[in-house]
């Protein structure tokens, strides 16, 4: 029941090859954090895992079947994907945004808005999960960056997928909301979902992910439990000399910026 990339080579159309043989598995019940420097190929990998970018070699497999063989509608019911940047052009409210996700899970049809009986409960549940219920009637364009991000995460949660792929879900969120969001990922994984998120904070990722995956120049540098991955041997390649490593009060490694 896992989502997996096998010896995956991929890149954007007409562009150079970004991923050069990536192996990665996200199993149900797991939270996996994908870390790496800018341009390492994290977003490319997320798009390929979401089925939006065809592999040039190797492949992506969902529940033992090649992802490409799965009808798009089935794929959407199983994998929820949040791209790194989403800027709607029109004045969608937060509730309308989440209703678009809820529709994938079968809550409501073309005519139904977020207030329709079939949709309302699903929309409110998803918004509450990211502490965004009070924003329901606000247009997305009027929200702060962090608030908008929480609404977008809610819209993907509303799809009720089996696997969550989130590209920098915590970007622009304040610390309490970032921690709350990652606790939510933990709870979703405990309920049986597979969660893969891209992040830039190894310290935070170490506290909420079962595994950290370091991507470097289109390849997986290391894939393992946080205590094994957050070591100078691996971090030097990704973080250069910009960090210090120490132990946190909870016994897990802490990455501190170096002056």
């Amino acid at each position, binding site marked *: 029941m896992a989502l997996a990339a096998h010896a995956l080579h991929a890149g954007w159309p007409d562009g150079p090859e970004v991923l050069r043989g990536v192996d990665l598995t996200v199993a149900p019940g797991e939270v996996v954090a994908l870390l790496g420097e800018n341009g390492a190929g994290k977003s490319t990998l997320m798009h390929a895992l979401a089925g939006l970018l065809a592999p040039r070699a190797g492949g992506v497999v969902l529940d033992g079947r090649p992802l490409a063989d799965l009808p798009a509608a089935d*794929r959407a019911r199983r994998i*929820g*994907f949040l791209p790194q940047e989403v800027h*709607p052009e*029109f004045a969608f409210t937060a509730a309308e945004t989440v209703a678009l996700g809820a529709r*994938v899970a079968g809550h409501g049809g*073309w005519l139904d808005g977020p207030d329709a009986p079939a949709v309302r409960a699903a929309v409110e549940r998803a918004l509450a999960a990211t502490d965004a219920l009070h924003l329901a009637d606000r247009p997305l364009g009027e929200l702060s960056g962090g608030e908008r991000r929480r609404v977008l995460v809610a819209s993907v949660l509303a*799809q009720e997928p089996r696997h969550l792929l989130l590209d920098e879900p915590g970007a622009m969120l304040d610390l309490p909301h970032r921690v709350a969001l990652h606790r939510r990922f933990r709870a979703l994984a405990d309920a049986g979902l597979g969660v893969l998120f891209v992040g830039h904070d190894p310290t935070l990722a170490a506290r909420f992910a079962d595994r950290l995956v370091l991507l470097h120049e289109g390849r997986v540098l290391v894939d393992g439990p946080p205590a094994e991955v957050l070591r100078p041997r691996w971090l030097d390649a990704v973080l250069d000399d910009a960090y210090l490593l120490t132990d946190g009060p909870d016994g897990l490694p802490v990455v501190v910026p170096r002056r």
Partner: protein
Amino acid sequence: MRKPTPRATVGLAALLCLAAVFVAPFVGSEPVAPLRAWSDLLTLPRAAWSPDAAILGLRLPRILLALLSGAGLAVAGAVMQSLLRNPLASPYTLGAATAASLGAFAGVVLGAGAVARPGPALVLAVLDVVLVLAVARRSRRPDGLVLAGVTLNFAFGAGVLLLRHLARPTDLAAMERWLLGSLEAVDAGPSLALLPWLAVGFTLLARRVGDLDQLAFHPALAEARGVAADAVRREGLLAAGLLTAAVVAQAGPIGFVGLLVPHVVRPGTGLRHAWLLPGCALAGGGFLVLADAVARSLDWFGRTSDLPVGVVTALLGGPAFLALLLRRSS
């Protein structure tokens, strides 16, 4: 003030449309007694009609053509704006209307009658959409679509100028009038010629309303949600091009309906196309019927011929659109 529901907005658009259709026949340079005209029209043979009924009989085909043309242009504009996620997209900004004009012009110069005119208009409008998409895809700029549209608009416009230069003097007057956008129709012929194209366009779009909702929000998210983005974009723009070409071939390039009407309707219906598109069809049809009534009713500087409706839509639509822009940015 509470936000209107989509249902109420579409209902209101339907009422306005209905009111426009009932009021418009009795607006014009000649006064008409409504009851007398309708009762004659419905009960007597044409030879026995009173002058009132005769005038009504002349105005009805025009109103029908306005209704259908407005509906087609407004829906085409709404779909273009949603698919390109650009509030400035319309049959004009993308060049489709000018391309269709060139096609219809070419038909006139080559001696094609009114029946054959939509043919070349359709070919060129679809060609325009295909070119816009191809150029935008290669340029990879977010504004590539509109830039390509504006460029092609100029190119097709130059073609129109060239044909005007080459046209016979006898054709020139008719072409000139048609180019301003005119709904002059002596019978139901133009409307009947328009109807099958509208039916095809609307049917294509009706199958895709759910996908249009997702695409209008965000293309990558839509694709992740199972929408075949490329296919829907192709089909939707083809349908919009078809609606544009069909209307332009019959009524000329009438401006601002496709740009303005979606902006007026969208705040009420929201971005759900199952409401937005019918709302635009009704409001667009009603708006053009009213604009044409205005064009007919005023004695423009003592001239005997009616003002082309394209002038009225531009005079009403231009300032209205600017006002909308200013209100939104404030």
